[in-house]
C-alpha cells in the first residue's frame, strides 16, 4: 500500500482525477469502483432484515425483566422500527437519480430514518446502507446531507461500512460538500467504530486527500487519530513539508507533523512551536449533541449498549463506586511509561527498541517473538484475565510486579469481601473474582500473598457458606513458608467450621487440605542430602510444617468419622488424603511418614465398603515400601542421619499390619491385634456376643466389605448351591478366589497381599489352608 501511495505522490496530477490507481491487485476487491456489479440485492436485503431483527432482539434484552411492559415496548418498537426497516430496504433498492421534490415516499422514509436516529440511534446494520446511499450520489445533496446527519449510532458503527464509504469517497460520485460532511462525521464518531484495523490500512488513501485544500484540515485531524508509528514514513514527512511550503504554516499540518515527530524524532528534524493553542477545531456538525442525547436516553435502559459505547469488552460492574474495582482492569499499555520514554528523548526507544503494546498481544507466538520488548500493563490486576501475561509473569522475576499485584488484590479482596463488608450484596461477582484468582494461582503454581493474608484475616469471620468452594480452593494455595501463623489463623477457625458443618463441607475441607499438602510437596524440593548440610534448620522447619498439617487432618478426621457415623463418603476423602501422605518419602523426598490415627485406620479396616478397604490396602502397601526404603537408606549410610523415622512409626505400622493380616487373612483379628485402640478382645467377652464361628468372621471371605464378592464367587463356582457355604472357599479355591478378587479391580488388595503376606508355598500347602484347617 505504501508503495502505491508513494507512486501516487509522484504522479500528483494523476490523482486529481480521483481515480484510484489500478495497478494494485488488492484494491479491486476493496474499491467499489465497480459498484455496478454489486452483490445481488436480494441477498443483501435479506441479510439486513435478519440483522435488524437481531438488533431488535438485543434491544429488548433488558425488558426481559419487566415482562408486563413487554407488549407495550414491542408495539413501540414495531411502529418505529418497522418503518426504519422499510425505509432502509427502500433506500437500498432505489435506483438511478431520484429527486426529493414531489416524492412523498422518499420523504416518508427519510422522516422515518431521521426520527429513529434522533431518538434511539441507528443499529450497526443501518450504517452500511445509509452510507452507501449518501455517498453514491444517487440522490440530491439535500437528501445526502439529511442522511449523513442521521448517522447517530445506537451502539457501534461497523468498520466495514466505513471502509466502503471511504471507497465511495475515492471514486468521487458525491459532491465536495458531502465529502466534507462525511469526514466531519467520521472524526466525530471515530471512537464508535468497532474496529479500526482495516481503516488504518487505508491510511495512504486518506493521505491523498491532503491535497484537497478544503478537505485538508479534516483529513489532517483524521490522520492524527489514525497515525501509528509505522505510518510515519520519510515520503509522508516530505509530502507534509511540501504542503506546508505551499499553504503556509497551518495548525492542522503542524499537528500532524508534531505527532510524526513524537513517533520518529530522528526523522522529523524541523522545529515545531512548542505549544499550540488549538490544533484542530471540534468538527462542527449536528451529531455531537444528538449522540449525547441518544446515549443518555439509551443508558437508562440498556447497560449493554453503554458497554459497547465505551469499547470495553469487560462487563461493567454494577457498582457505582468508582474505586470498587471488582472488574479486573483491561490490560492496556502504561501511558505513564510512554511519556516517560519520550522525555528521555532517546531515539532508540521509538525506533529499534520500541516496546510491544500489551493490547496487541493476542497469541502465544506473539508472546514468544516479543517477550524481550513486552511491558506489563498499566494496572497489574489485568494479568489475571490474560493467560499470556501470566506466562510472561512466570518468566519475569521482578519484585515490583508482585508488590503491585499484592496491593491491588489485597484492597480488592478486603473491599469486596461479602462476609466482611456489610452493605455488599454482589456475592456472584465476588465469587467469580475469587475463582479467577484461584485459576491464576493454579496457572502460576503459587499462591498470592494478598490472598493468603485475606484468608488469615477473614477466615475467623467466615460462615462457611458464602463462596464456599471458592474459599476452600484458595486455601489450597496458602504458601508453605508461613507455617507459624497457620495454626491460629487457618486450622483453628477451620476446625470450628468443620465440626459444625455438613458432611459435604467436611469432605470439601479434607479435599482442600489434600490439595494444600500436594501443593506444598510439589513446590518444595526437600534436600535430603544431609551429609553436606548437617543441621538444616529450614528442612526441619519444613518437616514440622508438613507434620503439623498431617496431624491436623488426622485429628479432625477422627472426630468427623465419629460425628458422621463412619460415613463411607467421608472416609473416601480421608483415605484420599492419606494416599498422598503414605508416599511422601519416596515421591517427594521428604523424610517424614505419619501413620493415620487409629480413629481413621480402624473405621477403614472395618468399612462396609470394598472401595475404601481396597484403598486402605494400597495405602498400607505404600507405607511399607516407603518404610523399607527409609530403613535401607538408613543402614547404607554410615553417619547418623538427622532425620530418622522414629521407632514409633515402625511400631505403629507393625501393629496395623498385624491387625490387617488378622482381619483379612488369618482370621485372628480379635486375638492378635496388639494396638491399644485395636480389636483385641477377651475370649469370654467374645463368647458373650453369641456369634457363631467367631474365628472366621473376619477374613477376605467373611469381611463385610468382601461378602458381596465371595457370594458372587460362590455362585460362579457352584451355581447349584444356594446355601452359601463359604467354607468351600479354601485350598485351591482360595487362590481362585484371590484371582477373582484381583480381576474385580481390587488392585490395592493385590499389592498388599503380595507384599505383606508371605505365603509358605503356593504349590504345596498355602498358609490359608493351614489357617482354614
Amino acid at each position, binding site marked *: 500500500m505504501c508503495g502505491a501511495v508513494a507512486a501516487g505522490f509522484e504522479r500528483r496530477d494523476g490523482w486529481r482525477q480521483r481515480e484510484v490507481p489500478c495497478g494494485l491487485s488488492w484494491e479491486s476487491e476493496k474499491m467499489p469502483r465497480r459498484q455496478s456489479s454489486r452483490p445481488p440485492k436480494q441477498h443483501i436485503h435479506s441479510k439486513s432484515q435478519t440483522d435488524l431483527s437481531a438488533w431488535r432482539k438485543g434491544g429488548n434484552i433488558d425488558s426481559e425483566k419487566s415482562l408486563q411492559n413487554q407488549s407495550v415496548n414491542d408495539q413501540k418498537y414495531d411502529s418505529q422500527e418497522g418503518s426504519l426497516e422499510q425505509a432502509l430496504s427502500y433506500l437500498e433498492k432505489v435506483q438511478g437519480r431520484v429527486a426529493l421534490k414531489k416524492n412523498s415516499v422518499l420523504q416518508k422514509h427519510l422522516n422515518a430514518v431521521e426520527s429513529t436516529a434522533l431518538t434511539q440511534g441507528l443499529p450497526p446494520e443501518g450504517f452500511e446502507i445509509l452510507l452507501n446511499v449518501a455517498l453514491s450520489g444517487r440522490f440530491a445533496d439535500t437528501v445526502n446531507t439529511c442522511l449523513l446527519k442521521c448517522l447517530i449510532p445506537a451502539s457501534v458503527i461497523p468498520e466495514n461500512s466505513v471502509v466502503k464509504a471511504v471507497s465511495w469517497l475515492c471514486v468521487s460520485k458525491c459532491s465536495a460538500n458531502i465529502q466534507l460532511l462525511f469526514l466531519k462525521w467520521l472524526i466525530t464518531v471515530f471512537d464508535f467504530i468497532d474496529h479500526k484495523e482495516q481503516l488504518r490500512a487505508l491510511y495512504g488513501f486518506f493521505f491523498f486527500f491532503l491535497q484537497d485544500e478544503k478537505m485538508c484540515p479534516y483529513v489532517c485531524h483524521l490522520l492524527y487519530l489514525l497515525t501509528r508509528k509505522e505510518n510515519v514514513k520519510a515520503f509522508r514527512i516530505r509530502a507534509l513539508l511540501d504542503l506546508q511550503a505551499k499553504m503556509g504554516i497551518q495548525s492542522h499540518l503542524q499537528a500532524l507533523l508534531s505527532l510524526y515527530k513524537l513517533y520518529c524524532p530522528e526523522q522529523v528534524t524541523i522545529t515545531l512551536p512548542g505549544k499550540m*493553542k488549538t490544533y484542530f477545531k471540534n468538527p462542527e456538525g449536528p451529531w455531537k449533541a444528538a*449522540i449525547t442525547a441518544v446515549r443518555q436516553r439509551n443508558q437508562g435502559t440498556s447497560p449493554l449498549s453503554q458497554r459497547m*459505547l*465505551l469499547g470495553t469488552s469487560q462487563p461493567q460492574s454494577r457498582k457505582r463506586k468508582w474505586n470498587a474495582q471488582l472488574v479486573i482492569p483491561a490490560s492496556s499499555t502504561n501511558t505513564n511509561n510512554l511519556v516517560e520514554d519520550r522525555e528521555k528523548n532517546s531515539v532508540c526507544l521509538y525506533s529499534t527498541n520500541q516496546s510491544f503494546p500489551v493490547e496487541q498481544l493476542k497469541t502465544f507466538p506473539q508472546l514468544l517473538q516479543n517477550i524481550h520488548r513486552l511491558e506489563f500493563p498499566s494496572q497489574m490486576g489485568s494479568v489475571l484475565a490474560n493467560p499470556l501475561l501470566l506466562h510472561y509473569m512466570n518468566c519475569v522475576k521482578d519484585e*515490583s510486579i508482585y*508488590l503491585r499485584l499484592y496491593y491491588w488484590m489485597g*484492597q480488592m479482596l478486603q473491599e469486596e469481601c461479602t462476609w466482611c463488608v456489610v452493605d455488599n450484596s454482589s456475592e456472584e461477582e465476588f465469587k467469580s473474582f475469587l475463582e479467577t484468582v484461584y485459576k491464576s494461582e493454579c496457572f502460576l503454581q503459587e499462591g498470592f500473598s494478598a490472598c493468603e493474608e485475606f484468608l488469615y484475616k477473614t477466615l475467623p469471620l467466615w460462615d462457611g457458606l458464602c463462596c464456599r468452594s471458592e474459599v476452600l480452593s484458595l486455601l489450597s494455595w496458602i504458601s508453605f513458608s508461613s507455617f507459624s501463623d497457620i495454626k491460629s489463623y487457618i486450622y483453628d477457625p477451620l476446625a470450628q467450621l468443620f465440626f459444625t458443618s455438613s458432611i459435604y463441607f467436611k469432605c470439601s475441607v479434607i479435599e482442600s487440605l489434600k490439595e494444600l499438602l500436594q501443593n506444598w510437596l510439589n513446590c518444595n524440593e526437600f534436600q535430603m542430602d544431609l551429609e553436606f548440610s548437617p543441621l538444616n534448620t529450614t528442612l526441619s522447619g519444613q518437616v514440622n510444617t508438613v507434620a503439623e498439617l498431617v496431624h491436623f487432618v488426622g485429628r479432625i478426621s477422627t472426630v468427623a468419622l465419629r460425628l458422621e457415623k463412619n460415613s463411607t463418603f467421608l472416609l473416601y476423602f480421608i483415605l484420599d488424603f492419606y494416599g498422598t501422605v503414605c508416599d511422601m518419602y519416596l515421591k517427594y523426598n521428604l523424610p517424614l511418614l505419619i501413620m493415620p490415627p487409629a480413629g481413621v485406620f480402624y473405621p477403614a479396616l472395618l468399612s462396609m465398603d470394598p472401595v475404601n478397604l481396597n484403598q486402605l490396602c494400597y495405602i498400607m502397601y505404600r507405607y511399607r515400601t516407603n518404610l523399607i526404603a527409609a530403613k535401607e537408606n538408613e543402614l547404607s549410610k554410615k553417619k547418623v542421619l538427622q532425620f530418622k523415622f522414629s521407632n514409633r512409626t515402625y511400631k505403629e505400622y507393625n501393629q496395623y499390619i498385624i491387625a490387617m493380616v488378622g482381619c483379612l487373612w488369618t482370621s485372628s483379628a480379635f486375638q492378635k491385634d496388639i494396638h491399644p485402640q485395636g480389636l483385641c478382645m477377651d475370649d469370654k467377652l467374645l463368647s458373650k456376643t453369641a456369634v457363631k464361628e467367631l474365628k472366621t468372621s473376619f477374613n477376605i471371605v467373611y469381611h463385610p466389605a468382601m461378602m458381596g464378592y465371595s457370594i458372587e464367587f460362590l455362585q460362579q463356582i457352584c451355581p447349584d448351591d444356594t446355601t452359601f457355604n463359604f467354607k468351600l472357599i479354601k485350598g485351591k479355591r482360595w487362590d481362585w478366589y484371590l484371582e477373582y478378587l484381583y480381576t474385580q479391580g481390587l488392585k490395592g488388595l493385590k499389592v498388599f497381599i503380595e507384599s505383606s503376606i508371605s505365603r509358605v508355598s503356593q504349590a504345596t500347602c498355602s498358609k490359608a489352608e493351614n489357617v482354614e484347617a
Partner: protein
Amino acid sequence: ESADPQQTAFALRKAWTLYSVTPLHRFRRSRLSDYARLLSAFIAAEKQKGLAVEVGVELDIKVALSSLAELRGSELDQAALLVQLSSRSRASSKNSEDKLVWSGWFCSMFGDELSENVPENFTCLPLFLTHGAESYTSLVGSWFQKTFDCCFRRLAISPLNLSWMVAMWAGYKLERAASAVELVFSMPCLSQPLDISYAIHPEDAKALWDTVQKTPGEITQGEVDVFMDCLYAHFHRHFKIHLSAAKLVKVSTGIASAHCDGIVKILHSQYLPGVLMLLTELAISQIQ
C-alpha cells in the same frame, strides 16, 4: 513540628473526605506538569466519552499538581502532593481568576511503617484527602489508579478510633477560646434514626483527661477507656441513658472534628501534623 502555615492554610477548616491509597508505582516528582496535562486531558476525555476531543485546545478544567514540601513527618516521608482542579468560565475574560472546583492531596505523616518496606520505584503517600464533587474525585482517582497502579479505598474511622481522637484532642491546649467538645452518638436498632449529641465544655474535658492520663505524651487504650467511661457515667447520671450501647459517629473539638464515615475537618494548623499522623496510621493499617 508544625508546618509552614502558608502552605497548610488550604487544608484548614474544610471537610475532607478520607481515602487510603496503596503506594504509587513509578511516580516521578519531576514530572508534575506532565501529569497535570495528562490528567486534564483525561478529565476532558472522560467528560465527553466516545466523542472526538479537540486536541491541544485549552480545556475547561485546569489541573494543577504541586508538591507541599513542608507537609511531611520523618525523613522517609514523601512530600505531600496537592491536586487542584479549577474551572475557567469561557464567558469571562482571561484575567479573571479560575474558580477552584475540587482539591485533593496525598500525604504521609510519619508513615515509616509503610515506606521503609517498599522498593525504590514506589511512592508511599497512603492518605488521600478530597474536598469537592465526588464526580471529580472519581475522575482523579481513576486516573491515578490507571497511571500509577494504585488502589483507593474510603477510610472509615471506627468508634474506637474516634474515642482515641476525642481523648487526644481534648487534652491539647488551645490559646483561643475553643469551641465545645462534642460527641455525637447514634442509637442502634431504631426504626427512626436517633442521634444524641453530647457537648462538654473544653476546659472540663481537658480537666478530666488530665486526671486520667498518667504520663504526659503517652496515651494508652486503658486511659482512653477510662476517659470515655467517665463521660458515659456522667451522662447516665443525668439522663439514664447508657451511651456505651450507642455508636459513636462523630467527635468534634477545637482541634479537629471527625466523622465515622471518614470525613475530617482540621481547625488548628498547630495540630495539623498530629492529626495527619493519626490518619496516616489508620490509612496504613487499611492497606496492609
